[in-house]
């Protein structure tokens, strides 16, 4: 008798991934799908696919899916959740989509405390269009549109997204993870699952940033890309929990915001 010890999550379709060898999108897709399976929410979840490498996510996830215009996934997800408050709604976005063209939608969905979950893939480059400078490209990083390296005097500085969003009262969970080792993959899974659980509980807006690789556009082998991630990405984008209102002892973002307002006004101890 053989025993099945590993299989495709039910929440992934049998469509073949369109990702390059060594790309970490596939790992993160699997983690999201496993989460839907374990929470039993595939049938009540609506996902939003972005523009970019993961645009075809609507073919890969087994739940109902909507494809959104570049950067607009948080606005689309906002309306989906308002229209379907009993459902689970997540958006899957890359760095160009989320932190450049869609930054306004990102910040405002977060500050409104929309009860949605954002899975944010940060690989410091525009992958789909062939490797251009991203809002999260590192200082001195060579890309197609920063051929001499990102000059911060010209192109400015990269954005640390979860740190920035963690200042907003609507955010329930802002955490950065990576998927370079089995240990970190398991930690990433726990973070993603926690984000979905917070949404189901109605705690507030949740975002998990996954520091990821792009071997193709970084011009590295998959293994070297993971090493480059460890040497360059993680020091600039340290994994960690940047905001977690439940860990801080609050039931939801409203309670946490009220306590913070009180604290800032000097009106009492928190």
């Amino acid at each position, binding site marked *: 008798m053989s025993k099945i010890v590993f299989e495709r999550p039910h929440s992934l*379709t049998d469509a073949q991934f369109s990702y390059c060898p060594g790309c970490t999108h596939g790992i993160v897709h699997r983690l999201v799908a496993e989460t839907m399976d374990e929470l039993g929410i*595939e*049938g*009540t*979840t*609506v996902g*939003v*696919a972005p523009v970019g490498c993961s*645009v075809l996510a*609507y*073919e890969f*996830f*087994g*739940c*109902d*899916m*909507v*494809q*959104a*215009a570049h950067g*607009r996934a948080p*606005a*689309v*997800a*906002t*309306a*989906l959740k*308002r*229209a*379907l408050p009993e*459902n689970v709604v997540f958006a899957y976005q890359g760095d160009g989509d989320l932190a450049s063209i869609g930054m*306004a*939608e990102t*910040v*405002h969905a977060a500050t409104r405390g929309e009860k949605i979950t954002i899975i944010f893939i940060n690989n410091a480059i525009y992958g789909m269009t062939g490797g251009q400078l991203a809002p999260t490209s590192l200082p001195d990083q060579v890309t197609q549109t920063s051929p001499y390296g990102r000059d911060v005097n010209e192109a400015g500085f990269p954005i640390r997204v979860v740190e920035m969003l963690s200042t907003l009262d609507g955010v329930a969970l802002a955490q950065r993870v990576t998927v370079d080792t089995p240990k970190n993959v398991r930690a990433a899974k726990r973070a993603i699952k926690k984000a979905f659980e917070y949404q189901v509980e109605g705690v507030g807006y949740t975002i998990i940033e996954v520091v990821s690789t792009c071997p193709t556009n970084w011009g590295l082998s998959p293994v070297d890309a993971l090493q480059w991630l460890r040497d360059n990405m993680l020091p600039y984008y340290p994994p960690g929990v940047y905001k977690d209102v439940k860990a801080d002892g609050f039931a939801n973002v409203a309670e946490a915001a009220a306590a913070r307002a009180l604290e800032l006004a000097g009106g009492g101890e928190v």
Partner: protein
Amino acid sequence: MKGNEALAEAAIRAGCRFFFGYPITPQTELAAYMAKRMPKEGGVYLQAESEIAAINMVYGASAAGKRAMTSSSSPGISLKGEGISYMAGADLPGVIINVQRGGPGLGGIQPSQSDYFQATRATGHGDFHLIVLAPSTVQEMTDYVFRAFDLADEYRTPVMILADGMLGQMMEPVVLPEPKTEFPAKPWAVTGHKGQRTHNIVNSLHLKPERLEETNVERYQRYDRIKATEQLAEEYRVEDAEIVVVAFGASSRIVRSAVNKAREKGIKAGLIRPITLWPFPADAISAATDRAKAILTVEMNMGQMVDDVRLVVCGRVPVEFFGRAGGIIPTPAETLAVIERIAASLEGGAR
């Protein structure tokens, strides 16, 4: 009621429970009315961070199978162009209100009809059309938006109400429709498959050119049905008209007075008022052209709808244009003067 408020109330009675707005003059009363009424109807009023976000929220709510609307004025509609194109590409219904003001750029805040091209030709990128309805009274603001939601669902297309600052701000008595209680099923909507069907996908991306062409061809077959069945125009004193004036929306009100004054002076003038700007009421205008000696198009812009009129008339009779731009409303007297000049030139030609 004020035009903007009457329109908002009619939308609620049409079953709209999702309104996404962003402040801009001269449509502000519409959003304010929605903010007041929606919570009482168990609906959602959400002030978006931008017009771009607002239209994408309409996209999301519509994808979930809900009746959703957004409103703005000209510069804001330009920003919505992207989302409207995506809605057309994903075959999503939805209603967009444009309470027009003068342009281009920031332009002004006075009434205008200078977004005719944008509404009927190129609201966004790609091959698509909107159904465009042009009210000329507060009652029509009410009636057309009520109809717009049904048209949007029936043909799975965004529908635009092309109003202007004058209609939005004016007050007239209005009869409101009875609230709608039955709505069409939307088996394509994303509501969670509950394990009972394969996943629904709302999407406008088709990487295979043959497949993308197929979706365009299918959509244009739908447009052909719309053109065949949904053209609407009001005809006023056109039966024996030698000079047929074509005008829509607010400018048609001025033309109506001018036509009456022209008739008092013995000039056989009439008015055709396109109600659907797309589909353009070509049949009504073509029939009137058979009897007319000249056509005059009057618009609150530099001459936009006149292009469609010329396509229909196709050189059979002269087509003249009179318009005021920048938010200036033409007066009945100056419109009458244009009609009189055309009448005189026709007589001159007959002698």
